[in-house]
């Protein structure tokens, strides 16, 4: 089991390295000159040359990539002589726009993204899985059909639409909630929750439908398994039959997609954060793309990829812990 975990982690590290290289290559091949971007519009050729030297852009691409990697794992310095700027571990460079370290920008915005992702995940899991289980148990009933139509609706509505409708209804019309803003959970829990409710609902609507449909399908499949018949033949109470012998196997695929979805969201919910104006990692990415802030884009990409890879590893490990057959194969 430990060996298995180590192997999965080694594989994850390799994948991250590949992503890193690919992202770096894309930015290197882009026509825009990073020095120009760093310096701004009105910039003298001397200044550009100086920036090129400081950022190490005169070196070969391999050297630049190596320096970038060293920066991430050990920190690095930019420039030489009097103009040395030190960038401590983990160094993802500095924003062209604000000159802030990219790593600090990311960590500053992470709590907002995590709040949105985790809250929405709890909501969609609760609603989606419950609806799916009930649908499977009352297959063909009015509830089943209504729930599945609603699920399809939730999946097909774009998030910027539901977000705007929610804001209009809950904030403008009913006045129940304030406009969302970044509120710290520890400083003001109520204000935090009030700001987060709408993004949670908007995101959960999108995902709950998918989860309800998958849960229903998996549940119907596991209900048809022979071991469910065995459980009934043993005389187990029906709730035990359903929970132990039908639901548990049905939840296995849910674990997989849940891990992936949550991992992707932790790296920033780009549209949701932008629509609600919440300063999370996704909003940072959107802003950086608009202003061609290359170090930030590179940083956000790697950061998000890191979460996805981490989620993948976690899913594999959780799966191995839950499924004895996977454990055996190792």
């Amino acid at each position, binding site marked *: 089991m430990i060996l298995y975990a180590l192997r999965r982690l080694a594989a994850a590290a390799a994948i991250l390295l590949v992503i890193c290289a690919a992202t770096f290559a894309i930015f290197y091949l882009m026509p825009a000159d990073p020095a120009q971007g760093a310096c701004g519009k009105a910039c003298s050729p001397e200044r550009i040359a100086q920036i090129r030297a400081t950022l190490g852009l005169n070196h070969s691409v391999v050297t630049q990539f190596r320096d970038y990697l060293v920066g991430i794992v050990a920190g690095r310095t930019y420039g030489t002589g009097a103009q040395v700027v030190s960038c401590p571990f983990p160094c993802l460079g500095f924003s062209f726009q604000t000159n802030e370290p990219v790593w600090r920008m990311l960590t500053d915005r992470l709590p907002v993204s995590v709040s949105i992702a985790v809250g929405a995940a709890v909501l969609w899991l609760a609603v989606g899985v419950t609806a799916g289980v009930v649908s499977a148990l009352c297959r063909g009933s009015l509830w089943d059909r209504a729930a599945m139509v609603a699920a399809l609706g939730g999946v097909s509505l774009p998030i910027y639409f539901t977000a705007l409708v929610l804001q209009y209804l809950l904030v403008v019309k009913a006045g129940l909630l304030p406009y969302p803003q970044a509120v710290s959970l520890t400083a003001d829990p109520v204000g935090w929750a009030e700001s987060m409710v709408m993004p949670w609902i908007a995101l959960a609507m999108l995902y709950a439908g998918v989860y309800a449909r998958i849960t229903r399908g998996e549940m119907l499949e596991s209900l048809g398994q*022979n071991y469910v018949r065995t459980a009934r033949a043993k005389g187990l109470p*029906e709730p035990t039959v359903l929970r132990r012998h039908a639901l548990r196997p049905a939840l296995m695929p849910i674990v997989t997609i849940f891990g992936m979805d949550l991992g992707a969201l932790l790296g920033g919910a780009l549209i949701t954060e932008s629509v609600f104006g919440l300063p999370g990692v996704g909003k940072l990415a959107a802003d950086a793309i608009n202003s061609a802030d290359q170090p930030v884009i590179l940083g956000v990409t790697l950061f998000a990829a890191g979460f996805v890879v981490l989620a993948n590893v976690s899913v594999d490990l959780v799966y191995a812990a*839950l499924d004895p057959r996977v454990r055996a194969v190792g």
Partner: protein
Amino acid sequence: MTLLTVRGLSVDFLSGVRAVDGLDLELAAGRVLGVVGESGSGKSVTSLAVMGLLPPDARVTGEVRFDGRELNGVGQRTLRGLRGNRIAMIFQDPLSCLNPYYPVGFQVAEAYRAHRRAGRRAAHRVAVRMLERVGIPEPERRARAYPHEFSGGMRQRVMIAMALCLEPDLLIADEPTTALDVTVQAQILDLLRDLRERSGTAIMLITHDMGVVAGLADDVVVMYGGRAVERGTVRDVFYRPRETYTKGLLACVPRVDGPLPVRLPTLRTPVTAAGEASEVTV
């Protein structure tokens, strides 16, 4: 004493298929009743009807009396109290019948705890004892193993341990050896013979294999198209069959002993109300 009486049992599915058509059966305590037939004869549907385990789209009519009590039409609560407790069942494919996510010891103990007030520990001890009784080596260690870590024969032993841990009056064995290799089948049949002698459990043995019935059953019912076409003691049915269908069924099995026919006789099927028997899968 009669343990199980089935009178005029019919099972209709919503699709319009009548899988069982006015069946009568009788099984005395401690006896072994062999129910033989080809696929679509309704033998498996009959066993599930007795257990009350048919899918909701099946309509069961007729009488199923177990130990003097009518079972058809009673609530799930009553049935649940009997299932696993006084009537247990084993199936054809032991791998798919065991839950892959739980150790086998847990699954045996689960059956015990469903009907007896027992703590986890006590139930586990019962499970280990049962696994030992059905011939699983190192039962203490193997109880913590998962179904995929067992061979086919060992899995069927686990199923038998699960079925017998509450010492039921009736064991319904639905094709218990069909998925197994012949040498393993011989082991399982030996085990069933042995358990029957020691515990006195009555067995309803459902199979397509005339050889399995010949070795284990006291009485035999031959089913075709949802009906019993012939019934009697095992010697009557095998040595003095009255129906041409039974004669044909006995003659068309290629045997490893005795004279060798150049061509196997083919079967003339009896005419039933429903005409051709349709295949039913449950």
